Protein backbone atom coordinates (compact mmCIF):
# COMPACT_ATOMS: atom_id res chain seq x y z
CA UNK A 1 0.00 0.00 0.00
CA UNK A 2 1.25 3.42 -0.96
CA UNK A 3 0.72 5.61 2.09
CA UNK A 4 0.47 9.14 0.75
CA UNK A 5 -2.10 7.98 -1.80
CA UNK A 6 -4.00 5.99 0.83
CA UNK A 7 -4.24 9.06 2.99
CA UNK A 8 -5.35 11.16 0.03
CA UNK A 9 -8.16 8.71 -0.70
CA UNK A 10 -9.26 8.58 2.93
CA UNK A 11 -9.34 12.36 3.14
CA UNK A 12 -11.49 12.50 0.00
CA UNK A 13 -13.93 10.10 1.69
CA UNK A 14 -13.88 12.11 4.92
CA UNK A 15 -14.70 15.33 3.08
CA UNK A 16 -17.56 13.61 1.30
CA UNK A 17 -18.90 12.31 4.64
CA UNK A 18 -18.77 15.73 6.25
CA UNK A 19 -20.61 17.31 3.34
CA UNK A 20 -23.19 14.60 2.85
CA UNK A 21 -24.01 13.32 6.32
CA UNK A 22 -23.25 15.82 9.03
CA UNK A 23 -25.91 18.31 8.09
CA UNK A 24 -28.74 15.78 8.33
CA UNK A 25 -31.46 16.46 10.91
CA UNK A 26 -31.59 13.12 12.71
CA UNK A 27 -27.83 13.16 13.11
CA UNK A 28 -27.82 16.55 14.75
CA UNK A 29 -30.75 15.72 17.02
CA UNK A 30 -29.95 12.15 18.10
CA UNK A 31 -26.21 12.36 17.93
CA UNK A 32 -25.50 15.77 19.28
CA UNK A 33 -28.38 17.62 20.96
CA UNK A 34 -30.09 14.70 22.70
CA UNK A 35 -27.06 13.65 24.77
CA UNK A 36 -26.53 17.20 25.96
CA UNK A 37 -30.14 17.54 27.11
CA UNK A 38 -29.88 14.13 28.67
CA UNK A 39 -26.81 15.18 30.60
CA UNK A 40 -28.21 18.51 31.79
CA UNK A 41 -31.49 16.97 32.87
CA UNK A 42 -29.46 14.59 34.99
CA UNK A 43 -27.64 17.51 36.54
CA UNK A 44 -30.72 19.36 37.73
CA UNK A 45 -31.04 19.26 41.49
CA UNK A 46 -27.71 17.56 41.96
CA UNK A 47 -24.62 18.98 43.34
CA UNK A 48 -21.86 17.58 41.20
CA UNK A 49 -18.28 18.46 42.05
CA UNK A 50 -16.67 20.56 39.26
CA UNK A 51 -14.18 17.84 38.27
CA UNK A 52 -16.93 15.25 37.95
CA UNK A 53 -19.01 17.71 35.96
CA UNK A 54 -16.37 18.55 33.38
CA UNK A 55 -15.12 15.00 32.96
CA UNK A 56 -18.67 13.62 32.76
CA UNK A 57 -19.80 16.20 30.24
CA UNK A 58 -16.62 15.88 28.20
CA UNK A 59 -16.95 12.10 28.12
CA UNK A 60 -20.61 12.27 27.21
CA UNK A 61 -19.96 14.78 24.45
CA UNK A 62 -17.11 12.95 22.79
CA UNK A 63 -18.75 9.54 23.06
CA UNK A 64 -22.01 10.64 21.45
CA UNK A 65 -20.67 12.98 18.81
CA UNK A 66 -17.94 10.63 17.59
CA UNK A 67 -20.46 7.82 17.29
CA UNK A 68 -23.27 10.00 15.90
CA UNK A 69 -22.84 9.31 12.21
CA UNK A 70 -20.15 6.69 11.79
CA UNK A 71 -22.61 3.83 12.43
CA UNK A 72 -25.05 4.87 9.72
CA UNK A 73 -22.74 5.78 6.83
CA UNK A 74 -22.41 2.20 5.58
CA UNK A 75 -26.14 1.34 5.64
CA UNK A 76 -27.01 4.68 4.02
CA UNK A 77 -24.49 4.12 1.26
CA UNK A 78 -25.86 0.63 0.77
CA UNK A 79 -29.39 1.95 0.42
CA UNK A 80 -28.58 4.85 -1.90
CA UNK A 81 -26.28 2.62 -3.96
CA UNK A 82 -23.46 5.10 -3.71
CA UNK A 83 -21.47 2.20 -2.24
CA UNK A 84 -21.44 0.52 -5.64
CA UNK A 85 -20.02 3.72 -7.10
CA UNK A 86 -17.30 3.82 -4.42
CA UNK A 87 -16.21 0.20 -4.65
CA UNK A 88 -15.97 0.58 -8.43
CA UNK A 89 -13.14 3.01 -7.81
CA UNK A 90 -9.59 2.08 -6.79
CA UNK A 91 -10.01 2.32 -3.04
CA UNK A 92 -9.62 -0.41 -0.44
CA UNK A 93 -11.98 -1.19 2.42
CA UNK A 94 -9.48 0.08 4.96
CA UNK A 95 -9.00 3.37 3.08
CA UNK A 96 -12.75 3.83 2.92
CA UNK A 97 -13.27 3.09 6.63
CA UNK A 98 -10.34 5.29 7.56
CA UNK A 99 -12.07 8.14 5.72
CA UNK A 100 -15.30 7.55 7.65
CA UNK A 101 -13.33 7.48 10.89
CA UNK A 102 -11.47 10.71 10.06
CA UNK A 103 -14.72 12.57 9.41
CA UNK A 104 -16.37 11.30 12.55
CA UNK A 105 -13.22 11.97 14.53
CA UNK A 106 -13.07 15.59 13.41
CA UNK A 107 -16.65 16.13 14.51
CA UNK A 108 -16.09 14.34 17.83
CA UNK A 109 -12.94 16.30 18.60
CA UNK A 110 -14.45 19.70 17.82
CA UNK A 111 -17.79 19.08 19.51
CA UNK A 112 -16.17 17.86 22.70
CA UNK A 113 -13.49 20.54 22.85
CA UNK A 114 -16.16 23.25 22.79
CA UNK A 115 -18.19 22.12 25.85
CA UNK A 116 -15.04 21.21 27.78
CA UNK A 117 -13.63 24.71 27.16
CA UNK A 118 -16.89 26.44 28.04
CA UNK A 119 -17.48 24.51 31.26
CA UNK A 120 -13.81 24.86 32.18
CA UNK A 121 -14.06 28.61 31.78
CA UNK A 122 -17.38 28.92 33.65
CA UNK A 123 -16.15 26.84 36.58
CA UNK A 124 -12.82 28.56 36.43
CA UNK A 125 -10.94 25.27 36.38
CA UNK A 126 -7.23 25.10 35.91
CA UNK A 127 -6.11 23.01 32.93
CA UNK A 128 -2.97 21.49 34.34
CA UNK A 129 -2.12 19.13 31.47
CA UNK A 130 -3.00 20.73 28.16
CA UNK A 131 -1.07 18.51 25.75
CA UNK A 132 -2.14 15.16 27.22
CA UNK A 133 -5.76 16.29 27.15
CA UNK A 134 -5.49 17.37 23.51
CA UNK A 135 -3.87 14.04 22.64
CA UNK A 136 -6.56 12.24 24.63
CA UNK A 137 -9.32 14.02 22.73
CA UNK A 138 -7.75 13.02 19.41
CA UNK A 139 -7.27 9.42 20.47
CA UNK A 140 -10.66 9.04 22.09
CA UNK A 141 -12.49 10.54 19.12
CA UNK A 142 -10.55 8.21 16.83
CA UNK A 143 -11.35 5.23 19.01
CA UNK A 144 -15.06 6.02 19.38
CA UNK A 145 -15.40 6.74 15.66
CA UNK A 146 -13.88 3.35 14.93
CA UNK A 147 -16.34 1.75 17.36
CA UNK A 148 -19.17 3.52 15.50
CA UNK A 149 -17.82 2.26 12.19
CA UNK A 150 -17.60 -1.22 13.69
CA UNK A 151 -21.31 -1.09 14.57
CA UNK A 152 -22.10 -0.23 10.95
CA UNK A 153 -20.64 -3.54 9.80
CA UNK A 154 -24.10 -5.01 10.34
CA UNK A 155 -24.84 -5.79 6.69
CA UNK A 156 -28.13 -3.93 6.37
CA UNK A 157 -29.39 -1.16 4.13
CA UNK A 158 -31.66 0.23 6.85
CA UNK A 159 -29.97 2.94 8.89
CA UNK A 160 -32.50 2.57 11.73
CA UNK A 161 -31.36 -1.03 12.31
CA UNK A 162 -27.89 0.21 13.10
CA UNK A 163 -29.21 3.25 15.02
CA UNK A 164 -31.05 0.81 17.27
CA UNK A 165 -27.98 -1.32 17.83
CA UNK A 166 -25.93 1.82 18.43
CA UNK A 167 -28.35 3.13 21.07
CA UNK A 168 -28.38 -0.23 22.82
CA UNK A 169 -24.63 0.00 23.13
CA UNK A 170 -24.13 3.73 23.61
CA UNK A 171 -26.37 4.36 26.63
CA UNK A 172 -25.23 1.43 28.82
CA UNK A 173 -21.62 2.36 28.11
CA UNK A 174 -22.25 5.85 29.45
CA UNK A 175 -23.58 4.43 32.72
CA UNK A 176 -20.57 2.23 33.39
CA UNK A 177 -17.91 4.72 32.35
CA UNK A 178 -18.01 7.19 35.17
CA UNK A 179 -19.95 9.85 33.32
CA UNK A 180 -22.69 10.24 35.93
CA UNK A 181 -21.20 8.33 38.81
CA UNK A 182 -17.44 8.12 39.20
CA UNK A 183 -16.30 4.62 38.26
CA UNK A 184 -14.82 4.18 41.73
CA UNK A 185 -18.28 4.55 43.33
CA UNK A 186 -19.86 1.81 41.20
CA UNK A 187 -20.68 -1.57 42.75
CA UNK A 188 -18.08 -4.30 42.20
CA UNK A 189 -19.57 -5.70 38.99
CA UNK A 190 -19.95 -2.17 37.62
CA UNK A 191 -16.33 -1.43 38.27
CA UNK A 192 -15.36 -4.61 36.48
CA UNK A 193 -17.41 -3.73 33.41
CA UNK A 194 -16.15 -0.17 33.44
CA UNK A 195 -12.64 -1.45 32.78
CA UNK A 196 -13.76 -2.75 29.41
CA UNK A 197 -15.16 0.60 28.34
CA UNK A 198 -12.67 2.91 26.63
CA UNK A 199 -14.82 5.85 27.69
CA UNK A 200 -13.85 5.20 31.32
CA UNK A 201 -10.25 6.07 30.52
CA UNK A 202 -11.14 9.25 28.71
CA UNK A 203 -13.29 10.44 31.63
CA UNK A 204 -10.42 9.75 34.01
CA UNK A 205 -8.02 11.53 31.70
CA UNK A 206 -10.13 14.70 31.65
CA UNK A 207 -10.34 14.62 35.43
CA UNK A 208 -6.57 14.29 35.79
CA UNK A 209 -5.92 16.95 33.14
CA UNK A 210 -7.86 19.43 35.24
CA UNK A 211 -5.88 18.60 38.34
CA UNK A 212 -7.70 15.54 39.66
CA UNK A 213 -5.78 12.61 41.07
CA UNK A 214 -4.97 9.68 38.82
CA UNK A 215 -2.55 8.47 36.22
CA UNK A 216 -2.24 10.49 33.04
CA UNK A 217 -0.12 8.33 30.76
CA UNK A 218 -1.63 5.02 31.77
CA UNK A 219 -5.07 6.25 30.75
CA UNK A 220 -3.68 7.63 27.49
CA UNK A 221 -1.90 4.37 26.74
CA UNK A 222 -5.01 2.29 27.34
CA UNK A 223 -7.02 4.61 25.10
CA UNK A 224 -4.45 4.17 22.36
CA UNK A 225 -4.68 0.38 22.67
CA UNK A 226 -8.47 0.52 22.45
CA UNK A 227 -8.18 2.79 19.39
CA UNK A 228 -5.89 0.39 17.54
CA UNK A 229 -7.96 -2.62 18.50
CA UNK A 230 -11.23 -0.96 17.40
CA UNK A 231 -9.74 0.03 14.05
CA UNK A 232 -8.40 -3.45 13.32
CA UNK A 233 -11.64 -5.08 14.38
CA UNK A 234 -13.73 -2.67 12.27
CA UNK A 235 -11.64 -3.34 9.16
CA UNK A 236 -11.69 -7.09 9.78
CA UNK A 237 -15.46 -7.28 10.23
CA UNK A 238 -16.26 -4.91 7.34
CA UNK A 239 -14.13 -6.94 4.95
CA UNK A 240 -16.36 -9.89 5.75
CA UNK A 241 -19.70 -8.12 5.55
CA UNK A 242 -19.09 -5.75 2.65
CA UNK A 243 -19.81 -8.38 -0.04
CA UNK A 244 -23.28 -8.83 1.50
CA UNK A 245 -24.07 -5.19 0.79
CA UNK A 246 -23.30 -5.31 -2.92
Amino acid at each position, binding site marked *: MHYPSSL*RKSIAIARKDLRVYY*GKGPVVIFGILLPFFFFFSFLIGRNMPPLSLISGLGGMAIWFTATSISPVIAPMETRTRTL*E*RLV*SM*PISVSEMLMGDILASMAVGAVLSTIPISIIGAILNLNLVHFFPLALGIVMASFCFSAIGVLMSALPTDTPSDVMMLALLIKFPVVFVSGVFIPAGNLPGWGRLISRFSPLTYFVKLVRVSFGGTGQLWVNLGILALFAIFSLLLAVFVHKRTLPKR*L
Partner: protein
Amino acid sequence: MSAIESRKLVKEFDGLRAVDEVSFRVEEGEIFGFLGPNGAGKTTTTRMITGVIKPNSGTATIEGIDVVQNPTAAKEKIGIAPEEANAYLDLTARGNMNLAGEIYGVPGSQLRNKVDDLLAAFGLLDRSDSKVKGFSKGMKQRLILAMALINDPGILFLDEPTAGLDVESQRLIKDRIKELNEEGKTIFLTTHDIAEADRLCDRVAVINRGKIAAIDSPERLKTTIKSTQSVLVSFSSKNFQPEDLRVLEGVEEIEKEGDKWRLYGPEPGKIIEEVVNFARDEGGEILSLNTTGPSLEETFTHLTKNQN
Protein backbone atom coordinates in the same frame (compact mmCIF):
# COMPACT_ATOMS: atom_id res chain seq x y z
CA MET B 1 -2.30 -9.08 -24.59
CA SER B 2 -6.05 -8.58 -24.62
CA ALA B 3 -7.54 -5.48 -23.03
CA ILE B 4 -9.99 -7.62 -21.10
CA GLU B 5 -10.02 -11.33 -20.59
CA SER B 6 -12.60 -13.35 -18.73
CA ARG B 7 -11.55 -16.88 -17.82
CA LYS B 8 -14.27 -19.29 -16.78
CA LEU B 9 -15.91 -16.86 -14.41
CA VAL B 10 -18.49 -18.45 -12.14
CA LYS B 11 -20.80 -16.76 -9.66
CA GLU B 12 -23.42 -18.51 -7.57
CA PHE B 13 -26.12 -16.86 -5.49
CA ASP B 14 -27.70 -19.21 -2.97
CA GLY B 15 -26.62 -22.22 -4.99
CA LEU B 16 -27.96 -20.82 -8.26
CA ARG B 17 -25.42 -20.23 -11.00
CA ALA B 18 -25.97 -16.68 -12.18
CA VAL B 19 -22.78 -16.83 -14.26
CA ASP B 20 -21.56 -20.16 -15.52
CA GLU B 21 -18.00 -20.43 -16.82
CA VAL B 22 -18.06 -17.28 -18.89
CA SER B 23 -14.93 -16.82 -21.01
CA PHE B 24 -14.10 -14.27 -23.69
CA ARG B 25 -11.45 -11.78 -24.75
CA VAL B 26 -11.84 -8.17 -25.70
CA GLU B 27 -9.10 -6.70 -27.86
CA GLU B 28 -7.77 -3.20 -27.53
CA GLY B 29 -9.82 -0.55 -29.34
CA GLU B 30 -12.94 -2.68 -29.70
CA ILE B 31 -16.48 -1.84 -28.75
CA PHE B 32 -17.49 -5.17 -27.33
CA GLY B 33 -21.20 -5.73 -26.75
CA PHE B 34 -22.46 -7.97 -23.98
CA LEU B 35 -26.01 -8.72 -24.99
CA GLY B 36 -28.63 -10.68 -23.15
CA PRO B 37 -32.14 -10.54 -21.66
CA ASN B 38 -32.80 -9.36 -18.12
CA GLY B 39 -31.36 -11.69 -15.55
CA ALA B 40 -28.95 -13.28 -18.03
CA GLY B 41 -25.94 -12.48 -15.86
CA LYS B 42 -24.54 -9.42 -17.63
CA THR B 43 -24.24 -7.22 -14.56
CA THR B 44 -22.88 -10.03 -12.40
CA THR B 45 -20.19 -10.77 -15.00
CA THR B 46 -19.33 -7.08 -15.32
CA ARG B 47 -19.06 -6.68 -11.55
CA MET B 48 -16.68 -9.64 -11.34
CA ILE B 49 -14.47 -8.35 -14.16
CA THR B 50 -14.31 -4.90 -12.60
CA GLY B 51 -13.39 -6.24 -9.17
CA VAL B 52 -16.57 -5.16 -7.40
CA ILE B 53 -17.55 -8.69 -6.38
CA LYS B 54 -15.44 -11.83 -6.15
CA PRO B 55 -16.14 -14.81 -8.40
CA ASN B 56 -16.69 -18.27 -6.91
CA SER B 57 -14.15 -19.50 -9.41
CA GLY B 58 -12.36 -18.32 -12.52
CA THR B 59 -10.75 -14.97 -12.94
CA ALA B 60 -10.43 -11.99 -15.22
CA THR B 61 -7.60 -9.77 -16.31
CA ILE B 62 -7.45 -6.13 -17.29
CA GLU B 63 -4.42 -5.42 -19.48
CA GLY B 64 -2.92 -8.54 -17.99
CA ILE B 65 -3.58 -7.55 -14.36
CA ASP B 66 -5.48 -10.19 -12.42
CA VAL B 67 -8.61 -8.61 -10.99
CA VAL B 68 -9.10 -11.12 -8.19
CA GLN B 69 -5.50 -10.86 -7.01
CA ASN B 70 -5.04 -7.17 -7.48
CA PRO B 71 -8.36 -5.35 -7.69
CA THR B 72 -7.08 -1.86 -6.90
CA ALA B 73 -4.39 -1.89 -9.61
CA ALA B 74 -6.90 -3.24 -12.12
CA LYS B 75 -9.46 -0.59 -11.19
CA GLU B 76 -6.92 2.16 -11.83
CA LYS B 77 -6.84 1.12 -15.51
CA ILE B 78 -10.56 1.30 -16.08
CA GLY B 79 -13.59 3.50 -15.86
CA ILE B 80 -16.89 2.02 -14.74
CA ALA B 81 -20.45 3.19 -15.10
CA PRO B 82 -22.24 0.58 -12.98
CA GLU B 83 -25.84 -0.29 -13.76
CA GLU B 84 -27.16 0.38 -10.30
CA ALA B 85 -25.03 3.09 -8.89
CA ASN B 86 -25.72 6.57 -7.83
CA ALA B 87 -23.85 9.77 -7.47
CA TYR B 88 -24.22 11.53 -4.11
CA LEU B 89 -27.50 13.43 -4.22
CA ASP B 90 -26.36 15.88 -1.55
CA LEU B 91 -23.23 16.82 -3.46
CA THR B 92 -23.13 18.97 -6.57
CA ALA B 93 -22.16 17.53 -9.94
CA ARG B 94 -18.74 19.06 -9.43
CA GLY B 95 -18.52 17.71 -5.88
CA ASN B 96 -19.12 14.20 -7.18
CA MET B 97 -16.54 14.65 -9.94
CA ASN B 98 -13.98 15.99 -7.47
CA LEU B 99 -14.53 13.02 -5.17
CA ALA B 100 -13.86 10.63 -8.05
CA GLY B 101 -10.84 12.66 -9.16
CA GLU B 102 -9.34 12.63 -5.67
CA ILE B 103 -9.79 8.88 -5.32
CA TYR B 104 -8.22 8.24 -8.72
CA GLY B 105 -5.39 10.58 -7.83
CA VAL B 106 -5.92 13.18 -10.53
CA PRO B 107 -3.47 15.98 -9.65
CA GLY B 108 -5.19 18.98 -8.11
CA SER B 109 -3.82 21.35 -10.72
CA GLN B 110 -5.53 19.43 -13.55
CA LEU B 111 -8.70 18.48 -11.74
CA ARG B 112 -10.69 21.63 -12.32
CA ASN B 113 -10.08 21.73 -16.08
CA LYS B 114 -10.73 18.03 -16.41
CA VAL B 115 -13.99 18.29 -14.53
CA ASP B 116 -15.10 21.26 -16.63
CA ASP B 117 -14.26 19.45 -19.87
CA LEU B 118 -16.10 16.29 -18.89
CA LEU B 119 -19.16 18.08 -17.56
CA ALA B 120 -19.28 20.08 -20.80
CA ALA B 121 -18.94 16.92 -22.90
CA PHE B 122 -21.94 15.41 -21.13
CA GLY B 123 -24.02 18.57 -21.27
CA LEU B 124 -23.89 19.27 -17.54
CA LEU B 125 -21.58 22.26 -17.30
CA ASP B 126 -24.37 24.77 -16.70
CA ARG B 127 -25.59 22.61 -13.80
CA SER B 128 -22.17 21.86 -12.38
CA ASP B 129 -22.85 23.62 -9.09
CA SER B 130 -26.35 22.25 -8.56
CA LYS B 131 -26.96 19.37 -6.18
CA VAL B 132 -27.57 16.09 -7.96
CA LYS B 133 -30.85 15.78 -6.00
CA GLY B 134 -32.59 17.90 -8.62
CA PHE B 135 -31.24 16.03 -11.66
CA SER B 136 -33.32 13.95 -14.06
CA LYS B 137 -32.50 10.28 -14.55
CA GLY B 138 -30.71 11.09 -17.80
CA MET B 139 -28.61 13.79 -16.16
CA LYS B 140 -27.63 11.47 -13.32
CA GLN B 141 -26.58 8.81 -15.79
CA ARG B 142 -24.53 11.33 -17.76
CA LEU B 143 -22.82 12.35 -14.53
CA ILE B 144 -22.03 8.70 -13.73
CA LEU B 145 -20.44 8.42 -17.17
CA ALA B 146 -18.46 11.61 -16.71
CA MET B 147 -17.21 10.29 -13.36
CA ALA B 148 -16.12 7.08 -15.08
CA LEU B 149 -13.85 9.13 -17.34
CA ILE B 150 -12.11 11.25 -14.72
CA ASN B 151 -8.93 9.14 -14.81
CA ASP B 152 -8.87 9.06 -18.62
CA PRO B 153 -9.04 5.24 -18.63
CA GLY B 154 -8.08 3.13 -21.64
CA ILE B 155 -10.94 0.74 -20.95
CA LEU B 156 -14.53 1.62 -20.15
CA PHE B 157 -17.23 -0.62 -18.70
CA LEU B 158 -20.73 0.63 -19.34
CA ASP B 159 -23.57 -1.43 -17.88
CA GLU B 160 -26.78 -0.61 -19.76
CA PRO B 161 -25.82 3.05 -20.04
CA THR B 162 -28.92 4.09 -21.96
CA ALA B 163 -31.60 1.88 -20.37
CA GLY B 164 -34.71 3.80 -19.39
CA LEU B 165 -33.40 7.22 -20.38
CA ASP B 166 -34.98 10.03 -22.38
CA VAL B 167 -34.20 10.09 -26.10
CA GLU B 168 -31.97 13.15 -25.80
CA SER B 169 -29.71 11.57 -23.17
CA GLN B 170 -29.65 8.29 -25.08
CA ARG B 171 -28.42 10.01 -28.21
CA LEU B 172 -25.82 12.05 -26.39
CA ILE B 173 -24.49 8.94 -24.64
CA LYS B 174 -24.34 6.89 -27.83
CA ASP B 175 -22.50 9.70 -29.63
CA ARG B 176 -19.99 9.92 -26.78
CA ILE B 177 -19.44 6.16 -26.81
CA LYS B 178 -18.54 6.32 -30.51
CA GLU B 179 -16.26 9.32 -30.00
CA LEU B 180 -14.49 7.72 -27.06
CA ASN B 181 -13.91 4.62 -29.14
CA GLU B 182 -12.52 6.71 -31.98
CA GLU B 183 -10.09 8.23 -29.48
CA GLY B 184 -8.83 4.68 -28.95
CA LYS B 185 -10.67 3.56 -25.85
CA THR B 186 -11.76 -0.04 -25.50
CA ILE B 187 -15.43 -0.22 -24.56
CA PHE B 188 -17.29 -3.05 -22.87
CA LEU B 189 -20.97 -2.31 -23.33
CA THR B 190 -23.73 -4.27 -21.66
CA THR B 191 -27.17 -4.08 -23.20
CA HIS B 192 -30.43 -5.95 -23.71
CA ASP B 193 -31.14 -3.94 -26.85
CA ILE B 194 -30.22 -5.79 -30.04
CA ALA B 195 -30.48 -2.65 -32.16
CA GLU B 196 -28.11 -0.78 -29.86
CA ALA B 197 -25.57 -3.61 -29.94
CA ASP B 198 -25.88 -3.72 -33.70
CA ARG B 199 -25.34 -0.01 -34.15
CA LEU B 200 -22.43 0.43 -31.74
CA CYS B 201 -20.48 -2.78 -31.42
CA ASP B 202 -17.65 -4.40 -33.36
CA ARG B 203 -18.32 -7.76 -31.79
CA VAL B 204 -21.08 -9.03 -29.58
CA ALA B 205 -21.17 -11.80 -27.00
CA VAL B 206 -24.63 -13.12 -26.35
CA ILE B 207 -25.27 -14.34 -22.83
CA ASN B 208 -28.35 -16.24 -21.73
CA ARG B 209 -28.96 -17.86 -18.35
CA GLY B 210 -25.39 -17.30 -17.29
CA LYS B 211 -23.82 -18.90 -20.35
CA ILE B 212 -22.25 -17.44 -23.44
CA ALA B 213 -24.44 -18.49 -26.36
CA ALA B 214 -22.44 -16.91 -29.16
CA ILE B 215 -19.67 -14.44 -29.86
CA ASP B 216 -19.91 -12.94 -33.29
CA SER B 217 -20.17 -9.81 -35.38
CA PRO B 218 -23.52 -8.03 -35.10
CA GLU B 219 -24.07 -8.72 -38.81
CA ARG B 220 -24.03 -12.47 -38.35
CA LEU B 221 -26.15 -12.32 -35.25
CA LYS B 222 -28.69 -10.19 -37.09
CA THR B 223 -29.12 -12.85 -39.76
CA THR B 224 -29.97 -15.36 -37.10
CA ILE B 225 -32.32 -12.95 -35.48
CA LYS B 226 -34.07 -12.22 -38.78
CA SER B 227 -34.99 -15.83 -39.37
CA THR B 228 -37.00 -15.77 -36.16
CA GLN B 229 -39.09 -12.75 -37.13
CA SER B 230 -42.73 -13.30 -37.92
CA VAL B 231 -46.05 -11.86 -39.07
CA LEU B 232 -49.20 -12.60 -37.12
CA VAL B 233 -52.40 -12.45 -39.17
CA SER B 234 -56.08 -13.36 -38.81
CA PHE B 235 -58.76 -13.46 -41.50
CA SER B 236 -62.51 -13.03 -41.16
CA SER B 237 -64.46 -15.12 -43.62
CA LYS B 238 -62.65 -18.01 -45.16
CA ASN B 239 -61.10 -21.01 -43.58
CA PHE B 240 -57.64 -21.25 -45.08
CA GLN B 241 -55.45 -24.27 -44.87
CA PRO B 242 -51.78 -24.03 -43.95
CA GLU B 243 -50.90 -25.16 -47.46
CA ASP B 244 -52.58 -22.05 -48.89
CA LEU B 245 -50.27 -19.79 -46.90
CA ARG B 246 -47.12 -21.81 -47.17
CA VAL B 247 -46.78 -20.99 -50.87
CA LEU B 248 -46.45 -17.29 -50.10
CA GLU B 249 -43.08 -15.88 -50.99
CA GLY B 250 -40.69 -15.37 -48.06
CA VAL B 251 -42.59 -17.57 -45.62
CA GLU B 252 -40.36 -20.21 -44.14
CA GLU B 253 -42.52 -21.67 -41.43
CA ILE B 254 -46.15 -21.55 -40.30
CA GLU B 255 -47.85 -21.98 -36.97
CA LYS B 256 -51.53 -21.70 -36.05
CA GLU B 257 -52.20 -19.77 -32.85
CA GLY B 258 -55.92 -19.89 -32.05
CA ASP B 259 -57.66 -18.10 -34.90
CA LYS B 260 -54.40 -16.51 -36.03
CA TRP B 261 -51.58 -17.61 -38.25
CA ARG B 262 -47.94 -16.95 -37.48
CA LEU B 263 -45.76 -16.73 -40.58
CA TYR B 264 -42.00 -16.85 -40.01
CA GLY B 265 -39.50 -15.37 -42.42
CA PRO B 266 -36.47 -13.10 -42.56
CA GLU B 267 -38.33 -10.19 -44.15
CA PRO B 268 -41.66 -9.48 -42.49
CA GLY B 269 -42.30 -6.51 -44.81
CA LYS B 270 -42.36 -8.79 -47.85
CA ILE B 271 -44.62 -11.24 -46.10
CA ILE B 272 -47.14 -8.52 -45.33
CA GLU B 273 -47.33 -7.56 -49.00
CA GLU B 274 -47.88 -11.18 -49.92
CA VAL B 275 -50.57 -11.62 -47.28
CA VAL B 276 -52.44 -8.53 -48.46
CA ASN B 277 -52.35 -9.72 -52.08
CA PHE B 278 -53.38 -13.19 -51.00
CA ALA B 279 -56.39 -11.90 -49.06
CA ARG B 280 -57.54 -9.75 -51.96
CA ASP B 281 -57.16 -12.55 -54.51
CA GLU B 282 -58.90 -15.13 -52.34
CA GLY B 283 -61.62 -12.79 -51.10
CA GLY B 284 -60.75 -12.98 -47.43
CA GLU B 285 -60.79 -9.98 -45.11
CA ILE B 286 -57.81 -9.29 -42.86
CA LEU B 287 -58.94 -8.76 -39.28
CA SER B 288 -55.56 -8.13 -37.74
CA LEU B 289 -52.01 -7.98 -38.90
CA ASN B 290 -48.89 -7.59 -36.77
CA THR B 291 -45.23 -8.06 -37.23
CA THR B 292 -43.41 -9.33 -34.21
CA GLY B 293 -39.72 -9.46 -33.76
CA PRO B 294 -38.44 -12.39 -31.81
CA SER B 295 -38.35 -11.89 -28.10
CA LEU B 296 -34.78 -11.74 -26.90
CA GLU B 297 -35.35 -14.94 -25.03
CA GLU B 298 -36.42 -16.66 -28.29
CA THR B 299 -33.44 -15.36 -30.19
CA PHE B 300 -31.02 -16.36 -27.50
CA THR B 301 -32.55 -19.80 -27.14
CA HIS B 302 -32.21 -20.12 -30.88
CA LEU B 303 -28.57 -19.07 -30.74
CA THR B 304 -27.89 -21.44 -27.89
CA LYS B 305 -29.34 -24.31 -29.95
CA ASN B 306 -27.17 -23.42 -32.94
CA GLN B 307 -24.13 -23.55 -30.72
CA ASN B 308 -24.68 -27.10 -29.55
